[in-house]
């Protein structure tokens, strides 16, 4: 059956434009470049068994990404981290790894996330505060059928704070009730000011 190891990694500035699929492929190839005893799926087309939590949008950096990888046998965690970090391109870095106790899928554990949005445009941050303190934050979004629908995202925002030009949003995340950080940008663009010079960083994915 193999044993599951969970790794937390950072995706920094240098690689923030690497898309989700390309990121997955990079990890798979880097794992193959190491001596880590990975387990392959059985069958006609054996594959490394790896799954990633919550895809990260192109252009966004992160301090907290996760993947689960099935190993053939337990492998020393420090060696796991060291081996993988020596082969990953600059910008990707494993920060932590452990053998999780639960057996639920990684994606189903994702419940919340924290985003840090740094805005370099000259705007009124007080206005951002006011906007997100309102009871209703309505934004138009395209749904799966390409129809424009209005949505109140108030309940997705669990908490937020603003320090200087950095806005920190604690939001719901996961497969069922996810708030895309770009939606926060849409809200700012709509209600505050059109911003161009900004950075989004995922500070944390909270697994529950």
């Amino acid at each position, binding site marked *: 059956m193999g044993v599951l190891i969970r790794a937390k990694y950072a995706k920094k500035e240098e690689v923030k*434009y690497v898309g989700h699929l390309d990121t997955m492929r*990079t990890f798979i190839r*880097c794992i193959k470049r190491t001596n880590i005893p990975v387990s392959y799926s059985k069958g006609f087309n054996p594959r490394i068994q790896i799954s990633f939590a919550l895809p990260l949008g192109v252009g966004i950096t992160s301090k907290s990404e996760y993947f689960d990888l099935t190993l053939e046998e337990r492998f020393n965690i420090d060696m796991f981290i060291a081996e993988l970090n020596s082969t990953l391109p600059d910008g990707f870095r494993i920060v932590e790894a452990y053998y999780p106790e639960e057996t639920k899928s990684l994606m189903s554990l994702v419940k919340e996330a924290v985003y840090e949005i740094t805005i370099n445009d000259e705007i009124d941050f007080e206005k951002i505060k006011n906007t997100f303190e309102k009871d209703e934050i309505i934004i138009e979004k395209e749904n799966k059928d390409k129809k424009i629908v209005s949505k109140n995202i108030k309940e997705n925002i669990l908490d937020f704070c603003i320090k200087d030009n950095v806005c920190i949003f604690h939001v719901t995340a996961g497969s069922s009730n996810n708030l895309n950080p770009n939606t926060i940008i849409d809200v700012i663009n709509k209600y505050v000011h059109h911003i161009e010079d900004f950075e989004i960083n995922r500070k944390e994915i909270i697994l529950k």
Partner: protein
Amino acid sequence: MLDKLLKKVEKPVRYTGGEINMCKKDLTNIKSRIAFCFPDVYEIGMSHLGMKILYDLYNRKNDTYCERVFAPWVDMENLMRENNIKLFSLETKTPLNEFDFVAFTLQYEMSYTNILNMLDLGGVPLWSKDRGENDPIVIAGGPCAYNSEPIADFFDLIIMGEGEEVNIEVNDLYIKCKDEGKSRKEFLKLVSRIEGIYVPSFYDAQYNDDGSFNKCVPINENAKPIISKRIIKDLDSLTYPEKWIVPYLNVVHDRVMLEIFRGCIRGCRFCQAGYIYRPVREKSKENVERLAESLINNTGYEEISLTSLSTSDYTEFYPLAENLIDKFKDKNVSISLPSLRTDSISLKLLDEVSKVRKSGFTIAPEAGTQRLRDVINKGLTEEEILNACRFAFESGWSTIKLYFMIGLPTETYDDLQGIVDLANKITELYYQIPKDKRAKGLSVTVSASTFVPKPFTAFQWCGQNDINTIKEKQDYLKTHLTNKAIKFNWHEPEISVLEAVLAKGDRRLSKVIYRAWKLGCKFDSWGEFFKFDVWMKAFEDCNIDYKYYAERQIDLEETLPWEHVNIFVTKDFLKKEYQNAMDEKVTSNCRQKCAGCGASINQCGVCFEKR
């Protein structure tokens, strides 16, 4: 600033670099910086083996740093122009005009306007004559270098032949000249003495009163009258890139490409590669096996492809393929074997490696009748073609792709009917196999490209069919390939016509290329960007008739614009091959019997194999 642009473009990773195995260097000790430019987008350029080889060779040197540059896609180019950002290298984001060398690889003629566009975007003067001491040396190499006359005026020097040794010689000389404070002109004089180096400004192309080409003569005492291509006699003596860059993006050839030999023994008369890479030289089986292992370990790739012009002609092909399949079985690495012949051993191997029948079974008869296949020296009989197809159907393929050329010398409508008949016979073969023993859903694709006469081939004298003739021939196939299981693919002939013009052109075409670029032509090999009418306007503006270059049957006694280049295959041999073609006579392959092409002067490879 760049970051702002990247937020707005499609596939920003095309411009960011930083991939696995990218070379990073401290610039303080670097004496020569090379921008290796591929005149197409990242995904195409990163599939090119030559770039990986030279990138590795240059970067093994401590005093040299070679970086990559690709043509930005149109969205990025527009943003770069709006924001005054010069074309830059992926490794250090350095603008093109700050490099010592700007080096282009000439892989196909239709990339020429992209070269001008990249130089322009990089702040480098387009014409060699306009460059000064502070500008980079603009160089080129690759298969189109052999007749680079149409773009010669844009380059300071051009490298003929295989680049592994000569690139390093040129670079070493450059560093020496730089250390000694020599001028650009002095460097060019010295470099033009190196075997394989062509400095176009040291030659004068002359024409007769009737406009035909007369000769290309040296006008500088350092320039050689004849430039001979460089070849590597012993491929095992070369270092091969073992740590190559693994792109983030899915590129065209996203796998390990392992070269097993250069050249081709076959001698198809239309094929430029078959002549310019002579003689055939192989890498040893042991070397290939060692490299395969090392490359897989260093890249993490899941597929390895043995590359050459005709893979199953490798002398130890079967043992090599078997060993590799064995070696990688447990590592879940698959082996792909492109360019196989249709012999039984190859087919058996193909069956072994193709566990998944997702891709089609491709076969290239090139011509529809035996007569025309003999004219082009394809050396493939109808029986062999049908046997291979029967094998494919019996082994579980139901998709067959057939490649043909139309407009080949001496072609008649009988030959076109031959294409139709052959395709029909193949569909009949499928239905002869019992239902329970064949895969469902027969699909036979007939692709017909337009013949492009190329320099340094037996057909270099041949005129190309005019556009209407080609269209009529395509129409014939469209109306006669009526079987529902057969799909017919063709291309608009205009692009092939321009390819012929640029392939066989002389120096007078440089102003047409410049004009076409000025009028907005770029990415000409991309159907959606190719503007034939704009090219026609460029020819008109320059008062040049494109038909003179594409359609004219050149007299065998005429001097050709590329005769100052020696590929070691003699003009006499090509004439003989032309005559054999007209007589429908087949020439034996290099292993059967030496045909005396001239390449044996190099004293290596297949010419000296024991038979």
